[in-house]
């Protein structure tokens, strides 16, 4: 197992290097630079700025410098927010996005699984139809509409939750709900179809023939086997949600990481673009590794390469 994880970590480093390289060069190919603005800067000042940030060096030197700094976990200063480094931006924004994201993931997984399982057990009955209507609504309604709906009804009309900002736990409920609605709907549909498939398997009939009740069969035989597709979806979902959502954070006035993904691009804020991309990639690669490990735990047939052969 340790050997397997070690190997995977090595692959992760290689992927990360490829991602850094690709982002670095694509970013430079894009026209414009951090100092492009409506007001044309005098050439001397621009030259000074370039010299200050090292942009006057040849591309391979810049690339080499950048790689060295990333290895030391230093993403450099932001070009746009003069007093802050990219590390500051991440360490301020990420905890906020992380808390919100975890809440959303827990909500999405819990309710998605419950809805999906109920729908599958009551296949073609009203419970199934209700669950699937909720799921279709969750997938089709964009999160920003969901967010404004929640704000209007739960915050403004009923006053249960605060409208916006990020202060107490109550402040996190609405944005977490808005973030969770689409993944929850997706998980519900995945779980339902996967449960239906599992329930039609022969071993479910074997379990029934043993005299086990429907409840025991569902819990002990069906859910575990139905979980794999959901786990697969969890990898990218976790990375996406934990690093924040531009739209939701904007609507609720939350100082998360999400905004930087969008604004840094329009700003041509090279270091921020690089920083958040690298950071996102690390989280994504880590969640994919966790998903693969989870596979091996859920389904004993999936042997992790390099792991010990069955006892």
């Amino acid at each position, binding site marked *: 197992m340790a050997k397997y994880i070690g190997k995977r970590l090595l692959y992760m480093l290689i992927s990360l290097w490829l991602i850094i390289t690709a982002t670095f060069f694509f970013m430079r190919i894009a026209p414009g630079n951090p100092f492009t603005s409506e007001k044309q800067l005098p050439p001397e000042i621009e030259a000074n700025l370039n010299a200050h940030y090292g942009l006057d060096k040849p591309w391979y030197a810049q690339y080499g410098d950048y790689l060295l700094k990333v290895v030391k976990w230093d993403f450099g200063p932001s070009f746009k927010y003069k007093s802050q480094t990219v590390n500051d931006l991440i360490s301020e924004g990420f905890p906020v996005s992380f808390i919100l994201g975890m809440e959303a993931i827990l909500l999405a997984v819990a309710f998605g699984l419950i809805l999906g399982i109920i729908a599958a057990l009551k296949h073609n009955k009203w419970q199934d139809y209700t669950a699937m209507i909720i799921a279709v609504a969750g997938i089709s309604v964009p999160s920003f509409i969901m967010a404004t709906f929640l704000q209007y009804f739960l915050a403004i009309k009923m006053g249960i939750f605060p409208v916006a900002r990020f202060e107490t736990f109550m402040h996190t409920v609405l944005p977490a709900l808005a973030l969770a609605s689409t993944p929850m709907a997706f998980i519900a549909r995945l779980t339902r179809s996967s449960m239906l498939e599992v329930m039609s398997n022969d071993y479910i009939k074997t*379990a029934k*023939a043993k005299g086990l009740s429907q409840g025991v069969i569902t819990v002990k035989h069906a859910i575990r086997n139905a979980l794999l597709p959901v786990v697969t979806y969890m990898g990218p979902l976790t990375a996406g949600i934990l690093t924040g959502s531009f739209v939701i954070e904007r609507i609720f006035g939350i100082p998360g990481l999400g905004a930087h993904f969008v604004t840094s691009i329009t700003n041509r804020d090279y270091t921020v673009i690089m920083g958040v991309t690298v950071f996102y990639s690390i989280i994504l690669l880590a969640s994919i590794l966790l998903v693969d490990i989870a596979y091996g735990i859920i389904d004993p047939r999936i042997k992790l390469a390099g792991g010990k052969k069955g006892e």
Partner: protein
Amino acid sequence: MEKILEVKDLEVSFQTYGGSVKAVRGVSFDLHKGETLAIVGESGSGKSVTSQTIMKLIPMPPGKITGGQILFNGDDIVPKTEKQMEKIRGKEISMIFQDPMTSLNPTMKIGTQIMEGLIKHQNMSKQAAKTRAVELLNLVGIPMPERRVNQYPHEFSGGMRQRAMIAIALAANPKLLIADEPTTALDVTIQAQILDLMKDLQSKMDTSIIFITHDLGVVANVADRVAVMYAGQIVEMGTVDEIFYDPRHPYTWGLLASMPSLDNDNKAELAAIPGTPPDLTNPPKGDAFAARNQYALAIDFEEEPPMYQISETHFAKTWLLHPDAPKVEPPEAVKNRMRQLSSTFDQAVLVKEGK
């Protein structure tokens, strides 16, 4: 002998988009303690549905028992609720399925799958159940059971998995074991081993067995009595000798003639029954087999034949046994094996009017 199971006029149908499929149409048979009854028939003849209905394992809906009784130890199973059935399944009646590759939960240890039934039906503690699971694995001939009990199905071969299935089925000492084509998915040497194992365990545990198969070779090997099913009905039933050496129904003739035999070393081609079984959404008028039957009489297309009794244990549902029916010769392959059995009545006796 004590009757453990009596099935009376069982009718099962499935509601589909194309209409209601009458999968089982008035099946009656009984089973004594310690006896093995084989139910044979081609795919779609209703043999699996009949056996699964005995445990009420058919999906309901779309399946529905539309008539008849299933008396297990004199107690009718048909009106029982799911909760009551849970006490019967696994404990009183167990089932072994056709494909051991898919009938075991791939993510659960073999031992746990055996223990489930023990914990449920015999109120065993986990520890006791595990000890018993090891014993059971040993009983069904799995070497190193202490190690095997902690393994997953994918670490077992097909034959080993079927042995494990048998261990699961026998865990709570059921009085009736239904084996639904238990050897079909296995290769021939393993088939023989599994059949031997089942016979051996039956004599040890005094279980009754219903053995579903389409393989007449297997039937000769394991069964005491045979019921031949066609289009949801039993068309002939008798002891193994009666079915193999004195068959009366043209469908049974067809089955026997299509069985390869070592004696049959001439160049004669293996016979096949022409055509396909009828659509049971609208069962044909008269005898369901008439359209494929080269011995069909005019009346076969008009009226369903009644059941005739040929001996104490031998029944056949064909007009050919009617006193006025013309004498017909069975096909060559069957004629060669025919013997005069001492128990046969002088004249076939009409027992039940066809509908």
